Every structure is written in structure tokens, then in C-alpha cells.
């Protein structure tokens, strides 16, 4: 089958590999019909995630059709259209019992801190990813969700990660009516976080990025104000001025370890890898929040350490909340939002590219060419199908 494999930093390759097999009684094999490149795939692409082995099949956002099920699978049958949350989770462990599906204890031998995720290196369990024709899906009775007939396949693929992660980012901000919410990053997750902030009753939403085309898109998609950080001298001062010198009630880091905006962070975090990536977005989030405010982090960082102003966070009495999204927990409510017409997640898809051209897709997405917001990859078997 065709699959996207990691070869070295800044080099993904499409190649023919062996098809996955049932390895556990509760596995399913899914034929992929749509799969996305996520902003967090860029961290792998840039070689920032430890234990990324050559040949790793990447990709954790995918939907498809059930091709085969293991002998104990009861909730899925061959032919079902399913969306697969990017978390692999058992549903029964200490954490899953608390609906913390991104923190499952039974899905990753290789790290106690990180859960199991599709196509996200051996630090996240060494599972094959979804930028391929077929994927093995463990714990098939609890992870995948059958796509309702009235949900478009491209809305469904946004529900596997980007939309739930953005929604959880807003939810973790514990937004109260009238709050000012600042979202750092106008990528797909940042856009969904900004959109979701309104659902929680925000009074004002401000999105920060350095790409004008993304900020223009954010203004239309998320009805927000925008700031291009390249056009301001100091991010914290600028946001204080915008908020009566108080700072924002809630700041959301939707960027993570590939952030630009600070030479020091880029040199030490990305080039020299002396910290777990560039944490400038988180630095700004902490320094731009008001005293007693909340900082919500969904941007991904490496597992070592990062230079952030934790002393300021303490002195300001900030609440810091963060996690990988518990996707399955959010799905019913997010589907209600789609059905109510509050959001059409597929609006952020700007590029539909054959899986065979994945190297070009990474180039377009990573280098923000052609006003790219979100690229979707279409495997050969699904090309031409709706």
C-alpha cells in the first residue's frame, strides 16, 4: 500500500509498504478515504520529536471505511464509515474512566507522560499513521465513531483532531461571559479555538499570527480581531494597550514548538535543540494574560524543557491548563454545533491533494505557500468519490 514515511528532517516520502494486519482481537483495519496534514506533523517533519524512526508512517487525522475487524470487535462492522480520534485509548484504565482519553495508560509502552497517538513517533507508541491507504486501529470498540449520514466526510476529518483540539483549548480557558480571549496562532487549531471561544460566551476574540493571509481568513471565519506580531514592537505591551492595560482574561497557545517571533527561542529551541522547541508563543501568552487570568496550552512541545517566564505566571496568579484533546469526549457536542450551523469545519480546507503527491503537500503547508490553511490528502481509492 502507499504510505507517507519519514526519512529525515524536512523529507517525507511516499512509498510502498506492507499492509497492516490485525494484531490484537479488538483491532480493525480502516481503508483511508481522507487524511490531513496537521500542524503538529510539522514538528516531526522538522525532526523535533525524539524517537522518530526512519520509515515511520505519519499522520493522525483520518477517516475511512472499515475493511476488516478482529474477532472481539462488537461495535463496528465491515463497511462502516468511521472517523478515528487521533488518541488511541482503551476506555477502561484509570485515566479513560475520567474521560481523559488523551492520557490512556494502556496505549503506549514507551512513555509514561505521552499517550498513544497514530503516526506520532515511538514517543507516542510507535503506531502507524493515517497518511496511507490503510491503517490498523487498536481498541476499535471504543475509539472510532461511525460517521452520521448527515455529516460531510470533510467535516468528519476535521473532527479527528483540529476542531476538538481548538474547542478544548477554549474550554480549558474556562471562559466567562464577556471575557477577552487572545489566541496565538491562526493555523487550523487556532482558528477553531477562536471560533469556539464565542460558543463559551467570549466578549472579544483576538488572533495573533504573522501571516496576513491567515489573519484575513481568521477575521472572516472566526469573526475576530487580529494582530500581526511582526507589526508590533512588543506583543505583551500591545495586548495590554488593547485591554485597558490589564491584559487578556484568557490566552491560548495554539502554536507549540515551531513558533517564530524570537531569534533567541528559534536558535536555542529549533536550531540547537537546547530546549523542547521554540516557546515564544507560550512566553507571550503568559506575559499577555491579566493577573488571575487563564492560559490554555494545546501547542505541542518536546519532552525535555522550555524557557518560559514561570515566575511571572506565579506572580500574576495565572491558572495554566493544558492537555492533548480528549477527542471522543467532545464529539457529540461538536456534531451538534455543526448541525446547528454554528460552524462548518471544512471551510478551512484550502487544498485537496492526491496522497501520491504528499511531498508537495508538506512543502505547501510547511512553507505556507499558495495561502494554505489546511491540506487534505486523498488516497487513490477515494479519488473521484465524494
Amino acid at each position, binding site marked *: 500500500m502507499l504510505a507517507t514515511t519519514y526519512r529525515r528532517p524536512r523529507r517525507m516520502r511516499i512509498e510502498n509498504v506492507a499492509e497492516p494486519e490485525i494484531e490484537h482481537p*479488538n483491532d480493525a483495519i480502516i481503508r483511508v478515504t481522507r487524511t490531513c496534514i496537521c500542524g503538529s506533523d510539522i514538528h516531526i517533519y522538522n525532526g523535533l520529536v525524539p524517537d522518530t524512526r526512519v520509515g515511520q508512517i505519519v499522520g493522525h487525522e483520518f477517516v475511512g471505511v472499515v475493511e476488516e475487524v478482529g474477532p*472481539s470487535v462488537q461495535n463496528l462492522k465491515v463497511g462502516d464509515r468511521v472517523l478515528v480520534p487521533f488518541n488511541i485509548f482503551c476506555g477502561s*484504565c484509570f485515566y*479513560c474512566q475520567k474521560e481523559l482519553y488523551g492520557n490512556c495508560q*494502556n496505549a503506549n509502552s514507551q512513555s509514561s507522560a505521552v499517550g498513544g497517538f497514530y503516526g506520532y513517533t515511538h514517543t507516542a507508541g510507535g503506531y502507524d499513521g493515517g497518511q496511507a491507504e490503510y491503517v490498523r486501529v487498536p481498541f476499535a470498540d471504543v475509539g472510532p465513531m461511525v460517521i452520521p449520514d448527515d455529516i460531510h466526510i470533510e467535516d468528519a476529518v476535521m473532527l479527528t483532531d483540529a476542531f476538538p483540539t481548538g474547542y478544548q483549548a477554549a474550554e480549558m480557558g474556562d471562559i466567562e461571559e464577556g471575557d477577552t480571549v487572545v489566541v496565538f496562532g491562526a493555523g487550523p487549531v487556532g482558528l477553531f479555538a477562536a471560533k469556539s471561544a464565542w460558543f463559551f460566551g467570549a466578549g472579544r476574540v483576538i488572533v495573533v499570527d504573522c501571516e496576513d493571509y491567515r489573519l484575513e481568513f481568521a477575521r472572516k471565519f472566526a469573526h475576530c480581531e487580529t494582530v500581526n506580531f511582526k507589526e508590533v514592537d512588543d506583543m505583551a505591551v500591545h495586548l495590554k494597550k488593547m485591554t485597558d492595560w490589564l491584559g487578556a482574561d484568557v490566552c491560548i497557545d495554539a502554536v507549540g514548538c515551531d513558533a517564530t517571533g524570537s531569534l533567541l527561542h528559534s536558535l536555542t529551541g529549533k536550531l540547537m535543540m537546547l530546549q523542547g522547541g521554540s516557546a515564544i508563543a507560550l512566553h507571550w501568552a503568559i506575559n499577555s494574560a491579566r493577573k488571575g487570568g487563564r492560559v490554555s496550552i494545546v501547542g505541542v512541545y518536546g519532552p525535555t524543557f522550555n524557557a518560559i517566564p514561570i515566575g511571572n505566571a506565579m506572580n500574576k496568579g495565572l491558572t495554566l491548563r493544558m492537555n492533548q484533546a480528549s477527542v471522543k469526549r467532545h464529539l457529540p457536542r461538536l456534531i451538534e454545533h455543526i448541525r446547528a450551523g454554528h460552524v462548518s469545519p471544512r471551510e478551512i480546507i484550502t487544498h485537496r491533494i492526491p496522497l501520491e503527491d504528499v511531498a508537495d503537500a508538506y512543502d505547501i503547508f510547511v512553507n505556507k505557500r499558495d495561502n494554505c490553511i489546511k491540506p487534505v490528502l486523498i488516497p487513490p481509492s477515494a479519488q473521484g468519490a465524494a
Partner: protein
Amino acid sequence: MAGTDQGSTNMDTARPHPDIPGWGSDLPRENRPAVPMERTPPRLDVPWDDPPPRQPMTVEILRSIERPDHSRTFGTRLPPKGVSGMIRRAAFRYSENDLRHWLMLMGADRVDIVEGMAGDLRRSPAKAALLVGGIGLAAWWLMRRD
């Protein structure tokens, strides 16, 4: 989805921002999926008690020493191998709390890249011949300059 009843599906709230679709629909805390944030029991049909059935271990899987045993599922396509695999095994003698664990893994990743390139050349004699020819030409040109 079975077992995932959200209770209220109310989307009607006061609308101080009528121009923004969905404004305030999740302002009532009972509409938020994570309230209470740690919900027990979960809204899922789970066909097993903890722990779930174990996946047969057909290849070498490294394990964090911060865990008591292996997880119940894991990926099997890329077991540790070669020099990079030896470094990875050594890295897993240290905990995730120990910086040496991560530095050794990042070192192993770089060695793996070189091993991967060597593997590519072995599988593609034409590329290997071009590379050897290129190196030979470069060496000849450099020696001619003296």
C-alpha cells in the same frame, strides 16, 4: 454514539452577539462536554474491565522504566535495529525524568537517518553508483588542484 448522551442539546441562549453563529451556546456549564472535567464513569460502552486484553508481543518493544509493564497495544512496524537500536535500548535504561534518555534518543534518530540512507543506497544500485562516482570525481578534481 452509544453511551455518550450529552443531556441537554440546548443551543438557544441570550444573544448579545447575534451576528456570531453559536455565541454563548456553551455558556451554560452543563452544555460543556468536560463538566465535570473528570467525568466518571465515562460515557462509553467498553467491552472489557481494566486492563483490556493484551496484544501478543511479536517484536521487541522498548518500555519506559516509569511504567510497571508494557501497554496493552503498541505499534510493531519499526522495532529497534542496528546501531541506532543499540542507542535506543541504552536510552531506555534511564527514566523520562533523566535528560540522558531524551538526548540519547535524539542521537539515535540521527544515526538512524544515516542507516536509512545506507539502506536506500543498498536497495538502489544506480544511486549508489552515482554517489560513488560523484565522490570519485570530486576527489580526482581536488587532487588535480595540487
